[in-house]
């Protein structure tokens, strides 16, 4: 997992999706298609892979967004979030949590750990799709990112 996170030529903004559910990943992919912003989606299924990807050799530019499910196998989203936000090289990367859990403790934990937003995934597919579309439009399109390159390993 040492691929560059940014398309070398097109310089497209990249969204790293940490999601073990294929259905939810599919919904996010569809949302990306619908949102009207040309971007890349790089999916991993657990926190470890996410961290490896972000810290990976050859990563020269950070992703525009990490979209993270909380309960992934292995290193879960909470742990991965904490590690990203404690890592001086990674903590600028926006991390948006998506979770089925509305547990106030999860919310508190995530925001305290530095999450940039927290979304509860609705069961209703249209709602879910609409919400993910909005998220991607916002983070990939509306916001400005620092002109910043990740130090090469």
């Amino acid at each position, binding site marked *: 997992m040492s691929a560059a996170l940014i398309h070398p030529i097109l310089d497209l903004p990249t969204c790293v999706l940490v999601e073990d559910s294929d259905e939810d990943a599919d919904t996010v992919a569809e949302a990306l298609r619908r949102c009207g912003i040309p971007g890349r989606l790089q999916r991993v299924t657990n926190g470890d892979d996410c961290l490896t990807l972000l810290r990976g050799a050859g990563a020269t530019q950070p992703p525009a967004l990490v979209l993270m499910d909380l309960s992934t196998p292995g290193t879960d989203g909470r742990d991965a979030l904490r590690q990203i936000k404690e890592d001086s090289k990674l903590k600028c990367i926006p991390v948006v949590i998506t979770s089925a859990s509305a547990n106030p403790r999860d919310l508190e934990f995530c925001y305290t750990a530095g999450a940039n937003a927290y979304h509860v995934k609705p069961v*209703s*597919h249209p709602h879910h799709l609409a919400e993910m579309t909005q998220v991607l439009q916002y983070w990939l399109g509306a916001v400005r990112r620092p002109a910043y390159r990740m130090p090469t390993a």
Partner: protein
Amino acid sequence: MTGDVSEARLPWEGQAYSAMRFGATITNCDSEPVQTPGCIQGHGALLVLRADNLTVAQVSDNSGALLGHPPETLLGQPVSRVLGEARAEELHAFLAREPVDRNPLYVLTHQGHNGAALDVTVHTIDGVVIVEFESTAHTTADGHDYFTLIKQSVHRLQSASSLQALGDAATAEIRALTGLDRVMVYKFHDDGHGEVVAESRRPDLSSWLGLHYPAQDIPEPAREVFRRTWIRPLREVGAPMSELVPLAHPDTGRPLTMTHCALRGPSVMYTEYLQNMGVTAGLTLSIRHGEQLWGLIAGHHYSGAFDLPYNMRAACELMAQIVSLQHKAAEDRDYLSHQLRFDEVRQLLVTQAANEGGLPAMVDGELTLLDALDAQGAALFHQERWWRVGQTPHDDELDTIADWLIERPEFASSAEPVFVTDALGTLMPCSPELSAVAAGLLALPLSKRGKNLIFWFRPEMLRSVEWGGNPHDKPMVPGPNGLRLTPRRSFELFSDSVRGHSLPWQQWEIELALRFRLVVMQLVISRAEQLTELNLNLARSNDDLDAFAYVASHDLKEPLRGMHKYAHQLADSAALADPLDAQRVEGLIRLTLRMDSLLDSLLHFSRVGRVALELEDVDLDELVHEALEMVVARRGEKPNEVIVAPQLPHMRADRVRLREVFVNLLSNAFKYNEKPTARIEIGWYPPHSVDRKPHWPQDVIQHPIFFVKDNGIGIEARHVEQVYKMFKRLHGRDEYGGGTGAGLTIVKKLLERHGGTVWFDSEPGVGSTFYISLGAQ
């Protein structure tokens, strides 16, 4: 003694006293010179000799009849005039040889007038020799071997294992030895009043065991005599007395001290007292702890004169001394076994409290505080209320006592934080009733601060013990010397002096109470620790439950979302040519959404019961309008008419949750409504402003009641119970806008968390009124 002697001149002041000439009254009996009565019992004769030459200085005026020499023929003469030369020599030698000072000893038997045999005993006091002559008829006739008898008695006394057993043995032995009708052990309490603690009596006599007698019944001079002598015999109550000639010693002018004389004339008080009780002869022995007079052994006879010859007296005296010696040891043993018993009770009480719900078990358990200490009432302040057992003051009086006590310095003592009184009424303002029930108070603080207290109460002793000499039916009879000591008179005086006083708390009882306090405090602390641990466990299991609920809903929703999505994709795809399939897929989508809301409700409900309420002052006007906005926005499509009563009150509640209650009720009111215009009324009843209907919960009208009234479909009576059941819907799941069926369950739970409740009146087709109460504020 309550009489003020100093105010009145004593009748005998300035002259030699004679019991025959001057009486005593109840007010001056403490001044009666009982040790120098100037008279002897008339059945014997007495000579007072000068110690140096044994010449007669004083003589009883019956010497002519008993000794054959009238007083005028003896005064100034040597004793040989009565005894003869040889016997006088014998007496002289005896005096030189034997320890007779204040110790009457038998010397010889004298042939008196008309040849009657007389026992002669002699002792010295204050430089004079007192020679007493008594008939020996009974001594020689009964032929008892007193030595053998007393040996057996002593053995029986020594084997007594307790104070009671010792008293029982002493009374039985002395009665057997003497043949008196009744022998009692009479114990002096700290305040001087007496109690019959052991008794042996002729079977036909009524028992006096357990009776208490006023202190005045045995005046101080009589007590003083018993500190000096072991025995006081009285052969016949009211028998003629014989006066000394002259009354005062001719050389010194002093009256004769007759403390140790067997023939000493009885005090006027004593005689009269015994006569009042029908006693015809008496024998009194003292029981002492060293110098201290612990009590008396009193013998009564009811059938005429009773001879107590010298050797019988000596035997009795020995018994009294043995009882006195044994007595201390027996009392110590009693104290020990008392302690052991109370220690055991204390242990049982604490165990009981530990096993059965804490301190309150000490007043309503099988064993109570009354078993731990000798008291008639006990109270405990714990968990913000009083727990009482036995005869105690009322709660508000207990509060008053507690408030007063907390300021007392006694409680500040770290070594002995205890407050003790046997007359509470003399220390704090008390109603007569209160000072009667709570005359005696022993109070222990259970904590440094606050009024966690244990009280023990003793009523005033006038109520708590049975008094002898309290025959209110007997009139007071003036004696020849004025109003005299009669049982009733003495009782009246006594009751004035002890009104508001309880039996005193003994030092060992106080020590016991302090030990009890330590154990109770340990219990309190260990229960507090248990409680902390329980709370920790509870918090932990609450956390676990919480986590479980979230994980469950999260994990259940994950696949649900997948199912829903596929159903959606199926519905979107053109592949479903068959309209029936399209319907089925629609159904699938609906079901997944319903499952989603059920999971949300379940999660919500699981939190409603556990999350801490945040109570604050809530303006119900504001809150109801917020709720309406939330609901009307949702239900805005339907024409409706909403009336809110003006000026709803402020209540103490959790704002968010109470709003949820109203949102639920209002949304139901809108939802279950088929009328063209939904009419909803929100109002309230102040406490006691509405009559409680039979099906309403108890006591709800004591607090404000809020209601939400609608003109909706109503609820059938048979569904009353089901309304509040989780996920129980009364209608088809898609009728009336669906819903999970958790709304009223949550409303009920939320109100119960506030200490309140929810109920309703309803008529199908007409409408429902839901009432809510937040309980006591």
